[in-house]
């Protein structure tokens, strides 16, 4: 496979990445939904007053731990995290794509975007 990396090929790969990411995220959310509704379907919802999520559902580590422990809300949140990660993965892949094309300007541009995204996901805000 000595085909050169072109914009076209990057775009095809990015397209597949986005689609698969969304499908995987939707599948995990749907699985979590089943568990959530079976266990908590009869309880009343409580979104009228803002309390904020418990701290374990606010960051990556806590969400993964909750999902592994079989928590329904943790599992759904893991699916949502996968969804959020999809565009981030797309940006990360674009860094590699532009590097393979030898386009330094866009490697830099894409790295800036990736840095902003990782800053936000690490819990950063202004």
């Amino acid at each position: 496979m000595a085909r050169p990396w072109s914009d076209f090929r990057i775009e095809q790969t990015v397209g597949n990445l986005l689609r698969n990411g969304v499908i995987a995220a939707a599948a995990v959310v749907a699985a979590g939904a089943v568990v959530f509704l079976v266990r908590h379907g009869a309880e009343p919802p409580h979104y009228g007053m803002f309390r904020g999520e418990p701290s374990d559902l606010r960051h990556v580590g806590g969400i993964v731990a909750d999902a592994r422990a079989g928590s329904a809300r943790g599992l759904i949140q893991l699916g949502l995290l996968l969804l959020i990660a999809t565009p981030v993965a797309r940006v990360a892949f674009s860094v590699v794509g532009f590097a393979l094309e030898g386009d330094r300007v866009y490697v830099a541009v894409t790295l800036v975007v990736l840095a902003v995204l990782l800053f936000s996901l690490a819990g950063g805000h202004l």
Partner: protein
Amino acid sequence: MRSPAAVGYDGARVGQGSCGKGDGTWARSGRGARRVNNLVFTALVGASSLVAGFLGSLTGLGGGVVIVPLLALAFGVDVRYAIGASLISVIATSSGAAAAFVKEGFSNIRIGMFLEIATTLGAIVGASLAAVLSTSVIAVVFGLVLVYSAFLSSRPRDEVAPAAAQDPLAALLRFDGAFPGPAGPRPYKVQRVPAGFGLMAVAGGLSGLLGIGSGAVKVLAMDHTMRIPFKVSTTTSNFMIGVTAAASAGVYLSRGYIDPGLAMPVMLGVLAGSTVGARVLVGARTVVLRRVFALVILVLAVEMIYNGFSGRL
């Protein structure tokens, strides 16, 4: 259309722990409160989101723009939970639609990536502001953006004539491209990059503040300011929306705005609706539908502004 008073629930879980001041949130809005359980609530929110996603994709206005008013006005959900759930649905539909458009060669990855610097930074500022501003202020700003979206969608999008001159910055950044047309590739040149960049930062800020894709502002920046042909600007903007929303999502997540139980039916509903909508779109006559949807958006806008000013949201 669901009447806003049709569904309600009692938001108070009395004696359930940390909330000190007790109940009354729902009563405050003065609508008939009826206790429903998670199963019914999930089904109703899911079905409404499905319709919103379907109409949003069919009209090109996006489903996210009606999700927040729908949740806040009809279901009595706190605005902060509503924008969190809406933002999640925006990422889902953007990534799903972008996957198709990118492959067709309409979107311009370079323009998208460069402008994402502006939109992601704007998004973090907007999402951080959302935590500081009162929900009433957010509701009013939301209403104003809705009015603008409705106005924009009621007019046909006119294709701007391709300009002969070129922005040197666009040349440096290798923005100029061509998109597939009926008579072979159609080249275009990009104008006024700095102004477009600034407007995109505003679009990102609104996206982060309101949990929407803010496609309307992106159209202003890319079509009117940068003079990008609308097939390219629409698909490129769609491509960028997911990345912009992901930047806000990190802030929302750490602030506890994203509730899995609420975001779940919204995400799955909007995703299913917009997927079906995109299939139907080919060959559908959407002029009347766009007008009707624009009218719905206008009504929601007035409700949001009114409720914001009267302090009910």
